[in-house]
């Protein structure tokens, strides 16, 4: 991963961690999943589970994190 991408990621993780008052390590896990599952365009055959929000909104804290990740991409 090039330095610019790493730096971008660090900034986003810090920003989210501050806004949701969580540890950066936990935020980073969600951000990684988010980029893997939702930030790259994908198409699935019917039945393919693709809802990042559903998969990551098991409790309020995770929901907040997931929403923060979405907001950080400015595409909500």
């Amino acid at each position, binding site marked *: 991963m090039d330095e610019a991408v790493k730096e971008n990621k660090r900034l*986003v993780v810090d920003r989210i961690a501050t806004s949701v008052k969580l540890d950066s390590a936990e935020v980073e896990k969600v951000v990684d999943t988010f980029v893997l599952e939702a930030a790259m365009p994908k*198409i699935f055959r019917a039945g393919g589970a*693709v809802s990042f929000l559903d998969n990551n909104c098991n409790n309020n804290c995770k929901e907040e994190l997931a929403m923060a990740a979405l907001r950080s991409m400015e595409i909500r």
Partner: protein
Amino acid sequence: MAVKDIKWDITGKCNLSCIHCSAGDKYTPENSKELSLEEKYEIIDKLAEGRVTSINLLGGEPMMLGNEFFSIIRYGVSKGIQMSSNTNGLFLNNEQIKKLADAGISGLTIAIEGPSSESHDAIRGKGTFKKVISNVRSLTEYISKKNVPLEITINTVLNRHNYQNIEKMVDLCLDLGVDKWNLLQLGYIGFAKRNIADLWLSTEEIIDVSIRIAKRVDPKINDLKNLIFEPRFTYPLVRDFIIKEYGWEMPLSKNCCTGSLTLGFIDPFGNMFACDRVANDEYKGTKIGSSLIKPMNLLDHTFYEIWNSEYFLEIFPLIFDDVTYRNYEPCNHCKYLKMGICTPCPLYSLDTEKIMVEECLFVEKKIGDISNLEEQNKNVSQVQGECTGDIQEYKAIKSFEYKYPVKISGIRSYKKKEDITTLFNPYTTEFFNLNLMGTKIWDLIDGNQSIYDIFVKLKDKITFLLISENQFEEKIKYFFYVLTKEGLITLSNARLPP
């Protein structure tokens, strides 16, 4: 399921006046002039251009058209369309049977309303049972003798006149040597609405029929030979209840709205609608989403102009949106709705009243939780997984093609959740889901922007990625390649790249 299945009321004329007729008196001779044979050919040409794979001729009584009926079938077959028809069977003498077979019809559905003249004639008129049974027997003997590839189906509408011994229809169908028996639900429409007191069954009576039918058709108890049975009179939840309480199993019948997805309906005057229900006067001028339901005539428009018109496209979200069914009890929390196995007619939701599916409410009281998907999912095969393509084929795409405008044509789409869009390709009858970024990209396709334009818009908005901008561009290009491969978009070179 055919790619496009057109139901066509080819004539409003009928030799009977059945008390449960769904057409009722909407096709009175004075309300409009029916199409000429040439106009019917013109419509078939347009359906063939629209890649329609099957046409089911209905009415009225299609055989009232005489020789024209056979000409229409021959013409459709010559265009590569599978032709079938429904009939009351009264015209099926030896001469007509031979003409039907020679015309190349592939399916014939005949109405028999019960296992005896008492139940059938009460609906269709005195003496009709004896005649239709004799005709069906001649038909099955002919096609068996001549080895004609023609599927014979019997349709029966469950009602007060036939429910007491309805399971005997199985014996009758086996005796007649037909291929299939459909037991249908009575629709509250046409003459049935007027005669409802004489026809309607209580919830308990329908449940009782379901139990008796399940016992009769359960392969553990009886051999149905090759007879296919479709219990379209009841719901999957009722089937669950009978399996649980009695252990008897009837086939699982899907009860799904396919209007505008794979189904289209044409009236005797050439107007095309998303289904036969939406064609009723009560829905004319009603809005679906932001679009008005309006008749569009195939003599004035191409098939695609109608098939891809606004209200046709709006029906897809109506069928799949949970909001549509919020007033349907108990559908609004039933697993079969979530699984897409049972989606009752969504048009009822256009009224604000609560819709009560009494049989399912009855079952819910007996079996409790009806929302648990886990158990059911074990039995339902779901084709899933990410769609991918051939990497060599992808690499062969020329770079200038990424600057062609991206167009969507006829694909039904619905934003199911904030981060999922469900797509339906009516040309292949396949469903797809797009993830969050896929959804975002889909929303940007407007017929003018190219893949490159869309990439530029997105790259500026994305504040972080774990890959470089170039890699992200590749991901987007590959995504569009897969969309093209699945027939969901086209890249038009109408606007030449700069």
